[in-house]
């Protein structure tokens, strides 16, 4: 008989409004203790009157979502959609235990944060920015910032809304689809590979470090940078980037110290006329 229960309490407009609420306020109460939880509880609070009549049920609904929650809010908008769908099913009388809703949230927030940060923030944004910076050129063309803003919004607004809606409609079955088909594994893996290659690309594009020193001995002059470029173009920028990665990842050196060290190297290099 539970098969016949349909979701009927929330209108399309309610769902859209809850999406807008999440997109806007997900981080506006970001805090040390529960991260994005106040916004998650807020999403539920906004639909509480539609889902339940008694105040106790409304309170319980919000309380369920005051637990620690943290993900990439845009890419993870689907998780909020799923939770909303599950809460509506529950309000319509379907058997949905508290633990299930909680475990769906906690098991999805990590992967969505991972995909969000590596595929969208770490890959898509640098690519779009690279194109935008190319359009700026030497004349400071407004095409650069306009291209970036337009491309980013045109991709992300439909993406976040459609995944939110899909999560809401499919509810728990969205989670099952994601896990059983192994889609999540593949998306994470694909995002990682794309991310690694693109970081290599933008490193090649944006890091520059040139030796200006020319070795002279009698008649013979040797342009050190020219020799290096002949062996491997961009060898020094590549080595510096790898060194920064090694120090931060393996030696746990802080970003501030590395930046300071690079500044000292540049200062000394300039002073002795080694760097261009």
């Amino acid at each position, binding site marked *: 008989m539970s098969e016949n229960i349909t979701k009927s309490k929330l209108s399309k407009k309610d769902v859209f409004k809850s999406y807008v609420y999440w997109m806007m306020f997900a981080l506006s109460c970001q805090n040390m203790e529960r991260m994005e939880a*106040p916004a998650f509880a807020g999403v539920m609070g906004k639909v509480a009157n539609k889902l339940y009549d008694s105040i106790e049920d409304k309170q319980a609904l919000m309380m369920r979502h005051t637990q620690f929650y943290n993900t990439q809010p845009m890419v993870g908008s689907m998780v909020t959609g799923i939770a909303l769908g599950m809460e509506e099913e529950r309000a319509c009388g379907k058997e949905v235990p508290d633990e299930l809703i909680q475990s769906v949230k906690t098991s999805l927030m990590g992967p969505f944060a991972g995909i969000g940060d590596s595929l969208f923030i770490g890959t898509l944004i640098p690519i779009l920015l690279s194109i935008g910076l190319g359009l700026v050129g030497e004349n400071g063309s407004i095409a650069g910032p306009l291209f970036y803003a337009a491309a980013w919004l045109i991709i992300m607004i439909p993406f976040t809304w459609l995944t939110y809606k899909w999560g809401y409609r499919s509810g728990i079955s969205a989670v099952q689809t994601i896990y059983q088909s192994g889609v999540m594994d593949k998306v994470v893996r694909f995002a990682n590979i794309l991310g690694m290659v693109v970081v290599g690309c933008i490193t090649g594009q944006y890091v520059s470090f040139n030796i200006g020193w020319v070795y002279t001995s009698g008649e013979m002059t040797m342009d050190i940078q020219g020799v290096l470029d002949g062996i491997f173009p961009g060898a020094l920028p590549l080595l510096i980037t790898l060194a920064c990665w090694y120090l931060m990842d393996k030696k746990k050196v802080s970003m501030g110290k590395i930046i300071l060290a690079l500044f000292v190297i540049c200062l000394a290099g300039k002073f002795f006329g080694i760097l261009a």
Partner: protein
Amino acid sequence: MNLLQAILIALFGYLSSNYSPWVFGQLGGWYTMGRPLVSGFIIGIILGDVKTGILMGAAVQTLYIGLVTPGLSMPADLNFASYMGIPLAMVAGADTEYALGLSVPLSFLGVSLVYVVASVNVFWVRKQEQWIAEGKIEKAANVPVYASIVQFLARFVPIFLACYFGQEFITDLVAAIPEWLGDTFVTFGGVLPAVGFAMLLRFVLKKNLEILYFLVGFVLIKVLGMPIIAATIVACFLGFLDIKYMGSGAGKAEIEMEVEEDE
């Protein structure tokens, strides 16, 4: 920079900051108006010199193109770098390299502020629970709306003060910077993006040997001279080959790992 301009810059600085909800959250704020490329454009409009604004924005953007700011870890504060560094460099009539020179120290100034805001916001967590318990559902649901005042104060006030009262100081400072130091900033600006990319690499690299993917990307651009979109297509192809022939076992462990990292 007059009073109105300083107020407008501080206001847009707040709207573009990470936790500001008003321009469709992160989507329109932090990740659109908060990118230095776009921030420079906005600041240029306010200060009446769009071209210089965009050029300075682009220079600052290059430094931070690879910056990922997951959760509460904020290695550099792009918000101050853009909304203090760019306008101050512009009113001082400085070159783009000075904008970089100003932005880097300013980007460290804001880092601890993120933690201050996130600590103060714990107060709202308590308030929300209290209001739920008292049955004030609407009020409890609006907690993130009220909480946005904290971020407003943390962003609007410093940016306004720095822009309005800092301009003379910065103008004198820039005039006093010797040429060799300016030259150093140019070289420094060239190598600094390496730090952002190293951070990004740390983020996407799961096994040491997979550094090969990074090297392939570098070679595509630097040795083969490919444009970025073409190189992205090659990257997609490599990703496709990997998930087609590797089997699904490889990804599982990573998901679990990421969950642990996030908690």
